[in-house]
């Protein structure tokens, strides 16, 4: 395989990665919609379709491993493939969190929410926006943008902290709703983790471009 073909193959794997990103973020948005609308049927559908994202990630892994084996890339080419492996694993994890949120939605069922979920909705919107924008920065290899976007994680962390404090207070006010409060706490945690994974993408991009590790999660 000539380097032109290697290049073409790498671009093709990157396109598969983008499809995986779209799939995972869409699934997360669907999970949020199902939660907000208490649409148990839609949530069950999300759980059923999890394997689609898993297979997409496995296919990327296989292609990357094959390229590493056959082409033995070095320097930026090697980092790009390693970063693709890691980023694909993280985006698959976003898909897992969508499934987890859907499962909590199924647990909540048709019960009315014990509290306003306005802040939770904000978290959902912000985290998916952040994911989409970071994926775009990742594609454009725009490190400045990626670094800026990673800072949004602090806002989501703060929202998460506020929401958890509020839910903890609720446990003493509405002890009979402890189950739903726990489900909502888990959901908050999943959303917060999705934002962390978005930050990872920014870190991977910096590693790809500069060959050094950066910790943007702290």
């Amino acid at each position, binding site marked *: 395989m000539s*380097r032109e073909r*290697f290049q073409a193959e790498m671009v093709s794997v990157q396109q598969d990665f983008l499809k995986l990103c779209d799939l995972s973020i869409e699934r997360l948005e669907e999970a949020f919609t199902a939660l907000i609308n208490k649409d148990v049927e839609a949530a069950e559908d999300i759980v059923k379709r999890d394997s689609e994202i898993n297979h997409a990630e496995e296919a990327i892994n296989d292609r990357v491993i094959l390229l590493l084996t056959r082409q*033995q890339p*070095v*320097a*930026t*080419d090697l*980092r790009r493939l390693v970063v693709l492996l890691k980023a694909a694993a993280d985006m698959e994890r976003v898909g897992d969190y969508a499934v987890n949120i859907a499962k909590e939605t199924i647990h909540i069922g048709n019960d009315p929410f014990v509290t306003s979920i306005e802040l939770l909705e904000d978290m959902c919107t912000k985290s998916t926006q952040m994911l989409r924008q970071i994926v775009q920065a990742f594609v454009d290899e725009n490190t400045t943008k990626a670094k800026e976007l990673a800072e949004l994680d602090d806002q989501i962390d703060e929202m998460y902290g506020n929401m958890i404090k509020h839910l903890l207070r609720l446990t003493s006010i509405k002890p009979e709703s402890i189950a739903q409060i726990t489900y909502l706490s888990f959901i908050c945690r999943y959303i917060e983790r999705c934002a962390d994974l978005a930050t990872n993408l920014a870190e991977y991009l910096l590693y790809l471009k500069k*060959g050094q590790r950066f910790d943007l999660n702290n």
Partner: protein
Amino acid sequence: MVQTMMKNENNIKLNVQSSQVVSEELPVVKNNKSTVFGTKDFNLWYGDHHALKEINLDIKENDVTAIIGPSGCGKSTYIKALNRMVELVPIVRTNGEINYRGRNIFGANYQVEELRTKVGMVFQKPNPFPKSIYDNIAYGPRIHGIKNKKILDEIVEKSLRGAAIWDEVKDRLNQNAYGLSGGQQQRICIARCLAIEPDVILMDEPTSALDPISTLKVEELVQELKGNYSIVIVTHNMQQAARISDKTAFFLNGEVVEFDNTDKIFSTPKDQRTEDYISGRFG
């Protein structure tokens, strides 16, 4: 040097046998190593062709230094300058310095014979003499006046052990070296080089004519030998340079584009031309 070998067995360097040494000796680049070859503003011309341009490069003791670059970049010319073999080409002219252990080898009073005793060379194509395995190894020591059979036996065994081929040939030392496989012949050549107990071993694409298993054996041998010798290896095989060397110099059009730790060259090279070459985008 060979006289020293005769007198004091304890000083004989050819004691590398254990494969365990390999893992302990894997590339750890130390900055305080002494310089074996110091190249300073060195230029070389073949007639009108300026083949090496302002080369500044330090080869450190007990390092494996890989020289990489596309065909015609000057890497073989450079390695052949290190033992003055390049002078065999009549139209060659040089300026600048290559200092071996602090003395300019192109200086007026420098004896080339002395240099060649200290700096051994292994070539691309295995080139054993049409003699027995034993005589191939004993050739150098005999030239240096060693006639004592017992001492020659000892040198032959230690050299063959040092080149990791003793076990394969110990029962047929009197057979012609031509009867060996290419990989074995190359290790015989390395053993022949070790027999005169050099300080530096130059290797000019030593595995390009070998099969993968023989290549692996020679690469493992290089790792073992670096504990006792300084090695400079020209290679077209990028993965080989990455696997076995401590430092890598990238030559292009007669210039050193980049010279750094191998880890650095193959992960985050400074120069885009280096990145393009090691990534296979030209050359």
